[in-house]
């Protein structure tokens, strides 16, 4: 059982050229794969294509194949895909249903639509809210949250669906440092159970440094580098690719350049 992209090339409807070229990628339950790259390199598109939203929902042209547990995303039905792959959009506010009076109902929206029994819906909502420490937001109006709070609520809504694959597009972009740490710990906990594969795009390489086992660099729609997280994140070519290395790596490089010894503990 895996989520697999094989020679996947994708062009948005009306675009002059493809946004992704010949992507080969495999995500298995338990994997924690980080994706870095400059803006407009194709990170968000990769999430949309891997989740099957592109082309099924947003059209465009896909060549090669994308399969989720063997289901081809071009022919599978949206509800079949939605049960297996959960996507968190970069701008989380745009993902809230707009139909829920409370955060609790917003998180319950997905599980309810899966037709789950009431007790199971309640259990899932409470587990997702607890995992992200947002139980105190449950009575709030989803339209009146701060950017960071909305991002956590959107993530909880996806977690409550319990998909086998999570495709998270900058899930911590609006979070404070401890919120970022908390999301990292929640994702590590989910991946450790071995039932969920997580792909996470981030500019915060410090988070990927402590979270991911492997990382890939995407540039101009192609996978430029791929490997063990420690190795890729320490690559001296990272800044030239528009990616800020983790603080630990930056400090070690600056110390070396200044001729002083420094080996900071991992964050």
């Amino acid at each position: 059982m895996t989520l697999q992209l094989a020679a996947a090339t994708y062009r948005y409807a009306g675009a002059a050229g493809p946004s992704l070229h010949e992507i080969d990628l495999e995500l298995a339950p338990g994997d924690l794969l980080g994706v870095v790259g400059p803006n407009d390199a194709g990170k968000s598109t990769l999430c949309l294509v891997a989740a099957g939203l592109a082309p099924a929902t947003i059209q465009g042209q896909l060549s090669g194949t994308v399969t989720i547990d063997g289901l081809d995303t071009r022919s599978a039905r949206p509800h079949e895909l939605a049960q297996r792959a959960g996507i968190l959009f970069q701008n989380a506010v745009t993902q809230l249903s707009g139909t829920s009076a409370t955060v609790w109902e917003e998180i319950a929206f997905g599980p309810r639509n899966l037709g789950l029994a009431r007790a199971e819906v309640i259990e899932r909502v409470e587990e997702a809210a607890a995992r992200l420490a947002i139980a105190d937001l449950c009575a709030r109006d989803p339209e009146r949250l701060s950017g960071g709070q909305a991002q956590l609520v959107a993530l909880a809504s996806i977690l409550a669906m319990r998909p086998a694959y999570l495709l998270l597009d900058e899930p911590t972009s609006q979070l404070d440092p401890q919120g970022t740490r908390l999301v990292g710990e929640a994702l590590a906990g989910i991946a450790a159970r071995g039932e969920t594969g997580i792909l996470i795009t981030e500019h915060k390489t410090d988070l990927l440094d402590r979270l991911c086992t492997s990382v890939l660099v995407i540039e101009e729609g192609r996978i430029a580098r791929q490997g063990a997280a420690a190795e890729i994140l320490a690559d001296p070519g990272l800044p030239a690719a528009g990616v800020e290395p983790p603080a630990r790596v930056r400090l070690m490089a600056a110390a070396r350049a200044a001729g002083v010894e420094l080996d900071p503990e991992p964050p």
Partner: protein
Amino acid sequence: MTPQIETAGLGFVYPDGTRALEGVDLRIGSGELVAIIGQNGSGKSTLVRHFNGLLRATEGTVSVGGMPVARRHVAELARTVGVVFQNPDRQIFAGSVRREVEFGAGNLGYRGADLARRVTDALALVGLGDAVRHNPYDLGFSRRKLLAMASVLAMGTSAVVLDEPTTGQDARGVDRVRAIVRSLVDEGRTVIAISHDMRFVVEAFPRLVVMRAGRIVLDGTPEEVFAEQEWPVLASTFLEPTLAARVGAQRGLGSTPTEDALIAALRGRGGSA
């Protein structure tokens, strides 16, 4: 000198009863560069919305340019304080990048060649000079953020508030935002930024204001705010010292919030870290 923005005993309670600000006393001088930091929901965005009259104090006072904002219209305050929202999609509405940037400055009465120059300059500063004819929604999120910034910069306000300007930006984008901030300061404009990006704030801002639960809990230089004795206060508002600050403290090098400060301190010690 009269501060450009001053709050005294500012409190704000949302209509649903949620208290967002309490007893905020803040003076920001003309041409000053200030970052406001603190956990999600600590009142940062609510505070800056008082500077251009989008929100009105329920307690205390807010003055801009030495005059209380209480009786001034948002339209008038908009000439002085420009606010770039955190989420560009709550701000962008026009069909082209140029039209988007023209809108605010046009509403302030700029016309013709003057308006065109303002729009061109603002787009050049944010690096969108080549995208004037694009539909804003054909731009990626990071460029939409820069577009929202350009729309406010073109208005030429003497104070600019940037809410989370580095969110979603890659390393080059963050460098671009730093350059924009420097350029505004060089023009003598006041710049106030809200940010969770600790590297950005310690490297680019000489003054940091730390908020927790609607109050200001620290106000000082990065060295003061990130000094080890303040870490419990930072932790209480969900902030973490930078790695450079932690390493400096661990090695008894004093407060070294920036990587440059840490390296300089290590060199000063002759490399015997």
